[in-house]
């Protein structure tokens, strides 16, 4: 707790939380939404392709989309870190009506989602891509990814409604 409180008082955390500048909180939130659109957007379309949507799309060229997806993920890692830093105690330590339980639920699904995305990328870099017919394992990974993203988005949105949910 002492460390987290100290983190909250660092220059960056104070800037994100308190600066009246547009480059503070609003820009961090915008970057977080843009990163979401890139990583969750593109990977959801790729997952839908694996599950049979637009099955005419060849799989091998999709490999080159992954660096872009990870760029979106990085944007959200950085902007998310900034947003977390500004409010570290509330988002990390449960109790006293704090946001931590819902925030950590979101983190869980984001991390599982990222691992699934990495696995999909690995499988796609192998011979799997040549057949254009995703294996059942690939379909399972893709369906799980979609579920994780939806749950992460729901939890993420609900962080702001903590008091209504946890009382």
């Amino acid at each position, binding site marked *: 707790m002492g460390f987290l409180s100290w983190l909250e008082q660092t220059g960056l955390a104070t800037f994100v939380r308190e600066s009246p500048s*547009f480059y503070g*909180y*609003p820009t961090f*939130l*915008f970057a977080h*939404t*843009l990163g*979401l*659109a*890139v990583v*969750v*957007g*593109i*990977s*959801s*379309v790729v997952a*839908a392709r694996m599950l049979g*949507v*637009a099955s*005419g*799309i*060849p799989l*091998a*060229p*999709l490999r*080159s*989309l992954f660096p*872009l997806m990870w760029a979106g993920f990085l944007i959200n890692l950085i902007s998310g870190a900034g947003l977390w830093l500004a409010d570290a105690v509330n988002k990390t330590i449960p109790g006293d009506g704090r946001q931590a339980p819902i925030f950590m639920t979101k983190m869980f699904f984001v991390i599982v989602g990222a691992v699934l995305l990495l696995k999909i990328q690995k499988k796609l870099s192998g011979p799997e891509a040549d057949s254009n017919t995703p294996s059942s394992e690939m379909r399972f990974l893709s369906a799980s990814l979609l579920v994780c*993203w*939806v749950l992460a*988005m*729901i939890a*993420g*949105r*609900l962080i*702001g*409604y903590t008091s*209504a949910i946890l009382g």
Partner: protein
Amino acid sequence: LNYAHIHIVLNHFPTIGTVLGFGLFVAARVKKSEDLQKASLVVLVVMALLGIPTYITGSAAQGIVRNDAGISAAAIEVHQNAAMLAFLFLGITGTFAWLALWQFRRFSRPSSWNITTVFLLSLLTVGLMIRAGTLGGDINHPEIRAEGQELADASQISWRTVGQTFIFDNSWTWPAAETLHFIGLTLLFGVAIMVNLRAMGMVKGVPFMSLHRLLPMGVFGFLLCLLTGMMFFVGNAERYVAVPTFFVKIGLIVLAGINLIYFTMFDQAWEIREDQDAPAVTKLVAVGTLVFLVGALYFGRMIPFLE
């Protein structure tokens, strides 16, 4: 110039345009002309897109004129109910018209059930738009009201109020709509990024034809955003119209929607084969679409900070 002026100019387009679109649609059936049919569908889609700023400037306009002497609040209320209904059906008509355009590519012709659907919906929408327009005209032109015509009584239920009650009296509606707004946004952006980046030269191994199949998924995402976005707007119209950049966001959405028509039906895009470079025009449209969409995302995200 204020939003009331803009509404007065804008409202003519979807009203007259829907009549025109329906007329062309019927003419195309009679003449059995495919080009005419495509034209009619494009008109209906564009009118549905223009319906968004028309509805929104209308809400802004009522705040401006509501307390003016000689303006009947009851007349505004009646027009507003009619406009909401007309806008709803205009949106549904535009969606099915877009689907028909997409089917022209996918199956070389729209399915017959959809032709019937667009016919019936656009006929209904024409009636609803004319009614909304007439009732709107009554607000500022009492001289054209029919002799002895009763002005609606002020106690008529306002659908906007019903909507607001639904949105605010349930603790779950706002967060649920926000979540759906984000899910819709990711679907829309996922498809838009793939399609437009391919046009710009990324993932060249993918032929455009195969990406065309994704478009309904993107449009579904957009409809989720539109539906939940209209919920936010109806629930809190005064708040949104007070944010100047809100109208920039709406304008960018309309522009992105018009670009979607290009990728839905134009040969230039459709004919981009595997490993083939897109024509310069297609690249330009793709850059434009992404700029419009990211702009809409930016101005949307900024709404709470610009109040």
